[in-house]
């Protein structure tokens, strides 16, 4: 089943590096997933996170406020 990944962040440097990490992991491991970058603050607040960037996988917030490592993202996606 295809996973839905959402990256919440208003476009700060940390949010960009999180996006790159997630994109790399998905393409390197041929994971079936769509990556959606949520930059609108109103949309972000619907998830009730207080620290960005945040990683949302299938509607569950898995990481907030920091940039994860590739291994970590891979584990979360499996």
């Amino acid at each position, binding site marked *: 089943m295809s996973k839905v990944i959402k990256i919440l*962040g*208003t*476009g*700060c*440097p*940390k*949010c960009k*590096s999180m996006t790159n990490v997630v994109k790399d992991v998905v393409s390197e491991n041929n994971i079936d997933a769509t990556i959606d970058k949520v930059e609108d*603050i*109103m949309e*972000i*607040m*619907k*998830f*009730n*996170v*207080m*620290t*960005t960037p945040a990683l*949302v996988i299938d*509607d*569950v*917030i*898995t*990481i*907030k*406020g*920091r*940039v*994860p*490592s590739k291994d970590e993202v891979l584990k979360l996606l499996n």
Partner: protein
Amino acid sequence: MFDWLQHFADWLIYSVFEIGAETHLGVALNFFVYDTLKILILLFVIVFIMGIVNAYFPIERLKDYLNRKKLYGLEYFFSSIFGAITPFCSCSSVPLFIGFVQGGIPLGVTFSFLITSPLVNEVAVAMFIGMFGVKATLIYVVSGILLGTIGGWLLGKFNLEPLLSDWVKQILENKMQQAKFQEEHRTFYQRLPEITNGAWDIVKNVLLYVIIGIAIGAAMHGYVPENFFSAYLGGGEWWTVPLAVIVAVPMYANAAGIVPVIQVFVAKGVPLGTAIAFMMATVGLSIPEATLLKKVMSIKLIAIFFSVITLCIILSGYVFNILL
């Protein structure tokens, strides 16, 4: 503590490059090498320590705590300290602001956080220790926290809720459903690499500003005559503090770039209090911050917010100049 760096700079400039210690160029280059290395070491250490603090800082619990307890005014103070501890990133300020208000924390207390958050940050603290020493840094941090406390309390006296953006008001009315969050359980050693990487990232991001700032500082240090500024700015006339602050508000200088320049101002005769006030206005209030805040509040509210803080900074500038 940094004697060995000074020896290294002396050796490099005076012996290796053979530029005389009595020439302007020699003095300026020596100052540049010494300060750049010192600041980079301090920056990394402090950013790294704050990274550890942040990895363990229980934001959600603090929010609940502020919300549940009656603290008799101390909540402004706690909120301000919290703003000082959270990392320097304007992009997180707005989500945190909404998170606070949504959690039922009064607007004034939230403002305390919002004032101190950019004002006292790890980059500014590292630069201050490097350029002015520990005592001046403590004064800066303590007064930044007090400023947030008092500013938030003052703003809390106005009835400001109607001036928030419509969609923020909507959020406040309908309690939104909480998305699920997987609690993380990871050990310190698992976190250490990413904390180190995070610290490097921050240092790398400000590196250019540090070098430019110190280069300008070094050039001024070597060439601007002693007491140059006191002749124009530093004479302690009453209008120097408001002038310095009002010039600084719209400016958006990275703390990393502005501190080395301010240090030279002080060395050449500008009172430290005026310099600290200038610094606070530069990093605490800026046009980009106003643009971000526009998403959550009306222009009128931003204007009130900026005016109150500007006044507070001007007043604290006077207080510093009397005390220091």
